């Protein structure tokens, strides 16, 4: 939670700086954020590749649970397709790109800003923050009405870190590996799916 507050405050400080006209427009003409994004993805790659402890723990999981991230992807994208008829000013692919963040708001908003501009990027940021906050605040509700896997599904890409404590509390400690696995797969899928839906 502390991390989320730090990240969001950087976004808010950025808005204030942008409003005050201190920052020259030339800063954005040379695509600086694209190079920072490449550096970020390089580091994300290193952290995933060197994380052998998490990779090893996946061997102990019952095969049927491997389907959970796939079900989460289908459910999320299905919901996005249905709701796109209520939001006619956006294309279906744009709404699916926003949904493909799976709560990983920092990365998905950065990607969508690069591909589709700051407006859709901001929608992605807000939408994916709301997803994470919903998982944290309504954890007991999801477990009660949608079963013990629902919280892991709603938590999406955040179930390896920020929402893991509430999953262990409300779904149960036996869901540790399922939660890590699902979060890991969805984490990995974010750059691929977001890029896909932004470029079609």
């Amino acid at each position, binding site marked *: 939670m502390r*991390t989320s507050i730090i990240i969001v405050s*950087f*976004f*808010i400080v*950025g*808005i204030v*700086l*942008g*409003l*005050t006209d201190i*920052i020259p427009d030339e800063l954005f003409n040379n695509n*600086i954020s*694209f190079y*920072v994004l*490449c*550096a*970020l*993805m*390089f*580091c*994300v790659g*290193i952290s*995933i*590749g*060197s*994380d*052998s402890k998490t990779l090893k723990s996946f061997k102990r999981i019952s095969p*049927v649970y491997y*389907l959970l991230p796939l*079900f*989460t992807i*289908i*459910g*999320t994208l299905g*919901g*996005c397709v249905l*709701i796109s008829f209520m*939001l006619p000013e956006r294309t279906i692919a744009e709404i699916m790109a*926003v*949904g493909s963040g799976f709560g990983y708001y*920092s*990365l998905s*908003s*950065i*990607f969508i800003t*690069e591909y589709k501009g*700051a*407006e859709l990027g*901001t929608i992605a*940021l807000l939408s*994916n923050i709301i*997803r994470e906050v919903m998982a944290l605040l309504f954890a007991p509700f999801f477990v009660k*009405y949608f*079963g013990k*896997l*629902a919280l892991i*599904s*709603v938590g999406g890409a955040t179930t390896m870190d920020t929402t893991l404590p509430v999953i262990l509390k409300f779904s149960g400690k036996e869901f540790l590996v399922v939660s890590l696995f699902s979060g890991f797969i969805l984490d990995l899928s974010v*750059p*691929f799916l977001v890029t896909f839906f932004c470029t079609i």
Partner: protein
Amino acid sequence: MFKVIAFMLIGGILGYLFRKREPGYISKAIMILICLLLLLLGIEVGKNPEIIEGIATIGVEALIITLAAVAGSAIMSLLLWKYIKSRKK
């Protein structure tokens, strides 16, 4: 734009090859880069009067998309959960 994913894959291979070294500084670097990028996104939003004026509509749109995405995943996970429970019996 697939360059960005290529950077992640190269990082992943390097990370795997050098996995014995504890990359504690990597998570710090990720955090700093994320904060920097969100600062840049914020500046871009602040400089764009159309987004600032439409921030209320943008928030509502974001909420609608999230509710649909969350409902979809909750329903799909319920189907999987029911299937798993029925197999155990």
